[in-house]
């Protein structure tokens, strides 16, 4: 329903939260880094002068300089272009995989928390089983089965992240289940779908969103790690992990390649972690009293 008077709360709360994030030095720093990474990934084509996969055999192992800002690798590809495009891949994986995990985790968590007891027990069993599988083993199994690919990376992330999101949502849903406004919705004849969507979800999603924002660096690290091991993106697609790997093979002669692969991973991870932690401090319900 569109309306004349916009509800006050969400807008004010959003602005106020942003204000408080900016007031924290850590939050400000995190936000700046995150914005930097996002902008450079989005405008990679405009910012980089070269195509990231174009090989220039004459320029192999070129030193950083004006023609190639970060130099070139063993195949003569422009590293600056590869780093920016690698950022694109990293963010894309993080975004898609986290969104899927969030959606899946929310649905499963709501069902586990609100549905019948046996279903809850079953889901918890499955979550625990998946979680108890070490990430590396999971990755290796999947890659053995389906071959290395970006999809494999995402599947690993989804499998690892979903159970923890689902658990958080489940616990909160259970706490809400007996509250009077849920009873009131039932008494009005609302079905389970509507109750979960309209009455439960908005009240439980906050903490998971914060959790997810703190998981983004982990996902980026997983992607880089798997690509480093050759289990992620396939060459010649640029990825920070792959660059890092190239760098390590030639670390004595051309150390900047390893730096070019490693530094973005560190900065991005740092940025998202700082931002995520500040967000958590700002929103954590235990530290704040709602009016």
């Amino acid at each position, binding site marked *: 329903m569109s309306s004349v008077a916009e509800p*006050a709360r969400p807008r004010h709360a959003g602005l106020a939260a942003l204000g408080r994030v900016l007031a924290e030095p850590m939050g400000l720093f995190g936000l700046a880094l995150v914005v930097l990474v996002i902008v450079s990934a989005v405008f990679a084509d405009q910012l980089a002068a070269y195509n990231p996969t174009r090989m220039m055999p004459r320029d192999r192992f070129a030193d950083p300089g004006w023609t190639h800002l970060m130099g070139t690798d063993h195949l003569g590809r422009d590293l600056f272009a590869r780093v920016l495009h690698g950022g694109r891949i990293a963010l894309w994986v993080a975004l898609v995989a986290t969104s899927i995990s969030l959606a899946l985790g929310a649905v499963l968590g709501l069902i586990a928390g609100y549905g019948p007891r046996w279903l809850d027990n079953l889901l918890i069993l499955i979550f625990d089983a998946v979680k108890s599988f070490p990430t590396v083993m999971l990755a290796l199994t999947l890659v053995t089965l389906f071959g290395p690919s970006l999809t494999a990376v995402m599947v690993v992330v989804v499998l690892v992240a979903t159970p923890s999101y689902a658990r958080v949502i489940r616990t909160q849903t259970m706490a809400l289940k007996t509250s*009077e406004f849920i009873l009131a919705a039932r*008494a009005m004849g609302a*079905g389970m779908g509507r109750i979960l969507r309209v009455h439960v979800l908005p009240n439980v999603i906050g903490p998971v969103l914060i959790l997810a924002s703190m998981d983004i660096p982990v996902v980026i690290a997983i992607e880089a790690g798997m690509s480093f091991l050759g289990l992620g993106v396939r060459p010649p697609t640029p990825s920070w992990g792959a660059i890092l790997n190239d760098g390590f093979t030639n670390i004595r002669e051309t150390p900047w390649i390893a730096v070019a692969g490693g530094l973005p991973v560190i900065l991005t991870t740092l940025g998202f972690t700082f931002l995520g932690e500040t967000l958590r401090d700002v929103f954590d319900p235990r530290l704040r009293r*709602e009016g």
Partner: protein
Amino acid sequence: MTALLSVEDVRVTFPVGGLFARLAGGPGEIEAVAGVSFEIGRGECFALVGESGSGKTTLARAIIGLQEVASGTLHFEGAEITGLGPAALKPVRRRMAMMFQDPVGSLSPRLSVRALLAEPFRIHGLTDRDLEAEVRRLLALVGLPPEFAGRYPHQLSGGQARRIGVARAIALDPVLIVADEPTAGLDVSVQGDVLNLLNDLRERLGLSLLIITHNLHVVRQVADRMAVMYLGRFVETGETEAIFAAPRHPYSAALISANPEPDPDAARNRIALPAEVPSLLARPSGCEFHTRCPWVRERCASEAPPLGDGARRVLCHYPLEPGDFAAPGMSSGIVEAGGPGGARSSPSEGAG
């Protein structure tokens, strides 16, 4: 005339304690509602009063299908509704609305008043109506300005939240409203407004009301009939006027005598009850009120009294006679004790 709602011998139980408690021979469950029967006619207002924790809310929830009943039957508009699933209950829930005990807690915290009031229409697929107009209409009905549509529950005072609850309950023109403490937290003027509003609807639309309240002044003003609940049972049922004029169950008498009067100098002649409220885990033998009854006699501890039947039902071996006790502020203002033939023990009187 068939009753709008008829409740027959309804019991509601809750499991208690863990597995260990049950293995150790604990009862395993409590009977929050222990066999209750009554009827509400069309256009009638029936009040439920009683001890806190005596099962009033549980009974109301059982009626509206939020609580499974262990045994007994419920009929609404002639059809049995006991144990129906949410889908089968959906049409029933358009005809029967509930107002909850906690005014703020029963409103979804992330929804605006506008969304809260539109919710019943959305649930029942009535989105072809002009919802914005419906919201304004409902707000006007409960005496709130239209600007309130943009507020969120935490920005309302307790009384304002209560009015939103009333507005939501009457949104779909139900025939029965089950109101759990509809006026708790309202000042006397707004309380009058809400009750007059419910009363108007009752007259105009033939609405029936089941009101649960602790405010005996309210009961006396609005209810046609009433029931007094104690430990999950109706201990007295009858016409409101008759019960107030001369309560026949000792608990009803104590309750009515305890009613605080708005006069700092009023003489307070109260029937004081011992503080120990019995537990549902260990219901007293015989008459369940005998542990606190000022008029208790030997038979009471061993033998459960019959409820009797007819318009006035009293769950007591020795119902009080009109002369036994008169509530302050009613006919004589004097507490008298003494049963038939003076055989009763004297009730202890509360300090004035």
